[in-house]
Every structure is written in C-alpha cells, then in structure tokens.
C-alpha cells in the first residue's frame, strides 16, 4: 500500500505577496513502514501533511499530484475527499489541548467516528469505552464523560489518537504529536503510537521537529527545509551517517550531542536565496551551490539533494 507525492507545490496568496510553502516535493511512502518528516518552523512539513487530506486554508494554490494506491487525491471533489478523510487517512492534529471541541464531551467526540461508520448508538458507546481502555486510560467512563479542558495534555493527545484510530484508517498522519509536552508525557505518546502501530497495522506519517522521537519511532526519515526535501534515509542510517550539511548541523545542535549552533538564520519566505536554498548557512558552500539548485541523488537506501554528492 503506497502513498506517493509527485512534484507537489503549495503557494499561499496573502496581501503581502505569495508564500511558497512547499516547492516541488516528490516522495513515496509505504504503509508497512513509519515515515517521519523532520523540519523546523516554516519548513512546510505541516502544509505537506495537510495537503494530502486537502485541508489547507482557502487561499492555498496546490499543483502536482498525490496518489493513494494509484488513486489521485488532488483531483477529487470535496464530497469525495470527505469519504477519504477519516476512513482511509486519519489525522492526529497539532496541540491536542485545542484540537478537541471544548463544548462536547470527549466520549461523544469519539463515538461520532463510530456513528459515521454506521454503527448504532449503543455499539459506538461500547467500542469507545473499549478503545479508551486500550489506550491506557485508567477510568474510561470518567474520561468519556469529561470535557477536554478537564484532561491533561497527554490525555488529550491519547483521546485524539483514539478519534483517529476509531475509523480503522489505513494511514494516520500525526502532526507535531509531542510539541510542548514534558518528557514523561512524551514517552507516553511514544508508547501509545507504538501500541497502535502493532495492534492496528496502520501506516504512520509522523510530522515533527522532535528528532529523538523520530529516531526512536520512525523507520524512514525525510528532512525538509524551506519547503524542499534535502535528505531521506532509514532512521538509524540518517543519525549515524548524516549526509546533508543541514542534517549534520541539526543533529549537532541537540543538547545532549554538544548543542553546537549553526551559522545564519532560516530565510524568510519572501526572499529565498538562489541556487541551493541552504548555501548561505552551509560551511561547504561552493560557487555552484550559489548558482544552481542541486538535483536529488539516490544512494544506498536514501537520497540527498546537495552538490557535494553530484
């Protein structure tokens, strides 16, 4: 089962000019593996995730194709997309505290997914309690009756996961699952995702800026910067032998790996540098890097997009 993205471009038209959030990204993701998309704020990773489900804001212009098992998603009408969302590809959205409806009890928000799948009210209630039990909630009834603001950050995250899993999708896209969480809660999220992966055999696409979570949970990792894919590889290989200078710099800036800062700043959207987008900050930048954008070179199990490997 494959999800393949071909030459995807996403531009947002705003009063202060058009913003190229994603340009010319091509990827193939298999549902057998967990794929992680790493990138910092403004790298376009979230936009990529949302564009798969067609959930971008109204001022977004999308070009290129996204295929799910050969079926093209980009051309679908809103009505057909609604059939895909939830049933085939589910989403665990960003900052869980605000991603649950504050006015509705948590249990009912989960039951809604079962009801959408056509189950009766009693069945949905039963399945919801089972699912909560499975996601390591000690008192499922109390949690089901509680409102989102009565739950902690971790519990909200697991409730969101329950909503995603309830429709038995084949894919789950998790957007920044650990952002702003304490270490202990972050570990719980990791455990939950691992349980879901083994129990429901679901294809995972994890979008995060948390390198440690990516290394531990994902099989393959894609590194994004300024809307472009700089490097892809297996998790182990990427951390042991990072090829692209940006990946190396990123790993080096981790607190427990020396916290060595990279030079320069991530460019603003409106004035992206010519040639290789990383060249102003790259220690090995050469003349060609300033002039020409590098092509993608496939080596070993991954790929890299840097003149150093032409």
């Amino acid at each position: 089962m494959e999800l393949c993205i071909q030459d995807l471009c996403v531009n947002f038209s705003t009063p202060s000019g058009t913003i190229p959030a994603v340009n010319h990204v091509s990827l193939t993701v298999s549902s057998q593996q967990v794929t992680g998309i790493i990138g910092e704020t403004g790298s376009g990773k979230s936009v990529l995730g949302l564009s798969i489900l067609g959930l971008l804001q109204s001022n977004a212009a999308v070009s290129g194709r996204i295929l799910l098992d050969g079926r093209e998603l980009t051309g679908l009408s809103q009505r057909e997309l609604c059939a895909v969302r939830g049933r085939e590809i589910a989403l665990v959205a960003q900052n869980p505290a605000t991603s649950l409806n504050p006015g509705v009890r948590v249990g009912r928000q989960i039951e809604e997914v079962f009801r959408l799948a056509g189950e009766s009210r009693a069945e949905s209630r039963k399945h919801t309690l089972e699912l909560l039990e499975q996601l390591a909630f000690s008192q499922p009834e109390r949690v089901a009756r509680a409102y989102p603001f009565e739950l902690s950050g971790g519990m909200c995250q697991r409730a969101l996961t329950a909503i995603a899993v309830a429709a038995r999708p084949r894919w789950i896209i998790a957007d920044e699952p650990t952002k702003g969480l304490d270490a202990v809660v972050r570990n719980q999220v990791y455990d939950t995702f691992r349980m879901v992966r083994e129990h429901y055999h679901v294809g995972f696409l994890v979008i995060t800026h948390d390198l440690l979570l990516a290394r531990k949970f994902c099989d393959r990792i894609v590194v994004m910067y300024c809307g472009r894919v700089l490097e892809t590889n297996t998790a182990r290989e990427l951390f042991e032998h990072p090829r692209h200078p940006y990946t190396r710099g990123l790993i080096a800036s981790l607190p427990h790996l020396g916290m060595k800062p990279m030079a320069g700043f991530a460019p603003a959207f409106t004035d992206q540098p010519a040639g290789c987008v990383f060249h102003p900050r790259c220690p090995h930048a050469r003349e060609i890097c300033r002039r020409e954008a590098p092509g993608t070179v496939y080596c070993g199990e991954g790929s890299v997009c840097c003149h150093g490997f032409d």
Partner: protein
Amino acid sequence: MNQTLRYIGKKLLWTIPILLGITLLAFALGLIARGDPAVNRASADPDYIPTEEEIQALREELGLDDPVLIQYGRWLGGVLRGDLGRSLIDDKPVLDELLRLLPNTLLLSVLALAVIAAAGLLGGICLSLFRDSFLDVAGRVVLVFLMSVPGFCMAYFMIWLFAQKLRVLPTSGADGPENFIMPCLAVAIGSACVVIRLLRSSILGEMGKNYVLTAQAKGLRRGQIILRHVLRNALTPSVTYAANAFGGLLGGSMITESVFSIPGIGSYALTAISKRDYTAIQGYVLFTGFAFVLVCLLADLICAWLNPKIRLGG
C-alpha cells in the same frame, strides 16, 4: 452535577445585591425629578388651575416633605410587599397597572424574540455557510441597511404597505394576534440584523480553530461541522445580545406601542413621563430592571450550558 448547581446558586446569590442596587438607582432617579408632582396631580384637566392650599394638602397626603431616607425606607418596604406605590395622577396602584398591561408587551417581546432567534440562527448559518458568495455579500449589504433604518420609519412604511395598500393586516389595536405581526417585525428587524451579523462572525471565528481541523479530518462536510461542532461554541455572544434585546423589549418599546396603539408597558411609561408621574416612572424602572436582570440571569445560564468551561471551570 453539583458543580452546575453551585454555579447556578452563585449566580442567583449574585443577583440579589444587583436588584437592591436597582431599587436604589430607581429611587435616586425619582428624587432628581424636577417639578412638583403634587401640582401636576391636580392639573390633569387643562381648564382647571389648582389653588395653593389644595397643592399643600396633596403634598402632605403623599408625604413629599419627609426626609429622603424615610421616603426611601417607606418606598422600599412597599416594594418588598409588592406595592410599587400609587400613581400620582389617577391614584391607581402602579403594579396592578403594569401587570394589566404586561400581557401585550410580553406577547410582543416573545414574538419579537422568536423572530430574532429564527432569523438570527437561519441568517447567521446561511451567510457563514455560503461564505463570500453572492448571497453573503448581498445579504450583508441589506443587513447594514436594515440596521440603519430608524424603527419608527420602518413602522410607518409597514402600516402604509400592509394595512393601507394591501389591506392584509389591521393598522393598529391589540385585540387579535394578527395585530401583533407588524409591531413585532418593526421591533425585531433591527436586533435580528445584529444577531445575524454577530452569529456569522463568531461562526467564522470558530471555523479557524484547531478542533474544526479534527472534525474535517473525520470526514464531516462544512454544513455538518457548523451544525454539530461550531454552532454550540459560537452561540454565546448571540445569546447574550438576544437576551439583552429581549430584556429591553420587556421594558416596552415606546415608539412601536404608540404608533400601533398597543396598550403596553411602554405606552404606560410614555404617559407617565408626559404627566411627570414620578412614582409610576420609579415603578416602571424597577419593574423593567427586575425583568431585565432575570432575563440576563437566564441568558447566563444558557451560556453556561452552551460552554461547560464557564459552568465547571468557574
């Protein structure tokens, strides 16, 4: 569940000082009134000029010369016993008059509230559902126009159109239900437009929130999302405004009641004011104040039911 009860208890407790404050305010209003009510009591008949002694006799009878605090104490004692004092003109008890006239104003206000709620809900949802389409823009222009037309011009226009030209509705009076259609519209149109705009902007505000993304990811269409998820959270400002408008209507809409000759609380207040009958005005202010506070209390409870954060988080 007991948290909700405690919240309601707290709210009820809180209204008592407010009601007391309103009695103080109403009495203070009475005091600053210019003009001597005793004089005006005797001069209802235009051809008759009261003599000095008669006025003095009346002042004694009405106790207008006692110190202020005593008058307030006596008045408040009366109010607690349900006696809002007697009109200075025709000596009828104010409360009985207000209660006699209440049904008309109540019927008018409830009908208007129904129109405001229905139009508000329908209009708000449609305009936000078909965002930026032709309906949305045209609707907004019409709304702004209707909001700006003064109530009494609207009333005359409707009388002329429906009663005189089409002869569909009676021009005035308050005997049958059909008499209330036009006055209710005249009163409700202004507030309905505001509620529609309020609801539309709060729905669109909520649509930008993260939980809508989760709902979309479940595969719900825009209409389902608005009805099942967004509406509940977006209603609070509209409910507060509608309750505010309804409370105001309970005070009797003077113009509509005078144009359509509906004997209601508003027309009572208007005659009381033209005759400078300040006990009646005090009673009126108190009556509408109490009604308004109760209506606002009801609105608070509805808002608390709508979003649990207030009820439980409080």
